[in-house]
């Protein structure tokens, strides 16, 4: 197996009064898409900031391409797509890329053909001379992905790449990210869209309160943590009613608001029973990463912290 792109050994991040990353270990193999999942305040952002040298590591070994993450030289091989838009609002699309190339010491002459390639990749060729302010949200995000590729990086780090985008824009971004992976790039992304993680990630970790709760491929995690099928039912009057409906069936139940989630490996009997009661509305679907996530991190609301 080739050497890990990123390696974390007992990595700790502590601020004055609290530990936000409590000694975690993971390795990221080259050429995969690695997902970091977790509810707000789980430590995803801190883990990313440390990786990018934006936050000093309190203790432990955190390496990128075999060098400590504090080594400034690693930035030449990494592209970053931040969550918040920090494109230059005063510049056109092309000039944004050109100026950014300058930070990597790439000359204007060298950058020019690369910029045209990237505009094509991001489906922005026709908007190249437009001001950034006139672009839609999806276009701006694509431009940020293109910008992150200006130095032809081996690793691309994306912080919630599709947050706030409409489905078309999101699918376009996903498609571009998959094509990057096909070209041998390693991707790291944080997200709390389980659909996004399932679409893109080969491996992921679920983080909560600074610890890794579980890790594996999306498929393996679903298999390991939840039953194969889910029936979400509304219209049941109370727990007794739910008991009655599920009587005699092998079902794990979860109740949130007005909805009962019933997890089972064979939902046929339950679906048949639900169909006989017209007052119930129900959705029957295969279990997803979201079910794993909610089972592991709980259904309670979190404060943003």
């Amino acid at each position, binding site marked *: 197996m080739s050497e890990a792109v990123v390696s974390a050994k007992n990595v700790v991040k502590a601020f004055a009064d609290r530990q936000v990353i409590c000694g975690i270990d993971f390795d990221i193999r080259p050429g995969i898409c690695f997902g970091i999942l977790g509810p707000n305040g789980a430590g995803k952002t801190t883990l990313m900031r440390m990786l990018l040298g934006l936050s000093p590591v309190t203790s432990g070994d955190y390496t990128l391409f075999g060098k400590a993450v504090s080594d400034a030289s690693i930035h030449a091989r990494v592209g970053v797509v931040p969550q918040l838009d*920090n494109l230059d609002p005063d510049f056109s699309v092309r000039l944004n890329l050109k100026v*950014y190339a300058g930070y990597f010491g790439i000359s204007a002459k060298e950058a020019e053909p690369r910029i045209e390639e990237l505009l094509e990749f991001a489906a922005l060729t026709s908007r190249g001379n437009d001001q950034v302010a006139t672009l839609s949200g999806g276009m701006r995000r694509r431009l940020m992905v293109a910008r992150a590729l200006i130095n032809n990086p081996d690793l691309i780090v994306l912080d919630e790449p599709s947050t706030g985008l409409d489905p078309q824009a999101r699918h376009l971004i996903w498609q571009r990210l998959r094509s990057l992976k096909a070209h041998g790039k390693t991707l790291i992304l944080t997200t709390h869209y389980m659909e996004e993680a399932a679409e893109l990630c080969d491996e992921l970790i679920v983080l909560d309160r600074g610890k890794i709760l579980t890790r594996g491929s999306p498929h393996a995690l679903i298999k390991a943590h939840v039953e194969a099928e889910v029936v979400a039912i509304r219209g049941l009057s109370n727990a007794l009613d739910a008991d009655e409906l599920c009587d005699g069936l092998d079902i794990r139940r979860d109740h949130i608001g007005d909805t009962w989630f019933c997890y089972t490996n064979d939902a046929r009997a339950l679906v048949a029973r639900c169909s006989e009661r017209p007052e119930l509305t129900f959705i029957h679907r295969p279990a997803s990463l979201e079910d794993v996530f909610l089972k592991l991190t709980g259904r309670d609301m979190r404060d943003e912290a």
Partner: protein
Amino acid sequence: MNIFKLIPTHVLAVWRRNFLVWKKLAGASMLGNFGDPFLYLLGLGYGLGLYIGDMNGIPYMAYLASGILCSSAMNTATFESLYSAFTRMNQQGTWESMLATPVRVHEIIAGEQIWAATKSLISGTAIFLVAGLLGGIQQWDTALFALPIIFLIGLAFAGPALAICAISPSYDFFLYYFTLAVTPMFLFCGVFYPIDTLPAFVQMVAQVLPLTHAVALIRPLLTEMPLTMPLLHIGVLALYAVGGFALASRLATRRLLR
């Protein structure tokens, strides 16, 4: 990290980014650079000059022009390093986007500082021309040496202002700096009248402030007044420039890399 280990291409890239933004709005920006000092020179130089006549043996217009040249270099560099730099640091995420590249915090600070001094030089050149037209320059042969000194003055004021920027929670905070540092210097460092008319204690304070030394360098270059202790004045300005850079780099690192 050694903050004096700067990679020139990184610093230049930061400078160039700001220059390109300025270039887009150069017209409006230049108007501002000309406008204020032009009004001061006209209003005070002519108006007040008529009553005052000579000051320290030279016409008041010439006396004032050299002072205004210095104070405008101070103001330009200070504004750029407070308001504009804060926008780039806090509102637009420009610094953050640079930190995702090989550019490091102290190189951003250096690029910003040199850019602010460049703006001082641009506006200084504008005032230089206005002063020349209004008869504020007596000695053209030495006057041109004022231009590199204006750049140094820009560096000396940009450094401390960037340090203030790096600890500022919001734009409102800058008002303290103006009230406590910039305005007193504008009034008590020899821009309008010789500081030896001030009480001894105030004179002592004025001697450690950079604007005093800026004026002491620029005025003899533009007028017939004799130049004394140039190396001391250059030394003090250089100290503010380097000290300000070091402090701003440390404070910005503390703020950005948590």
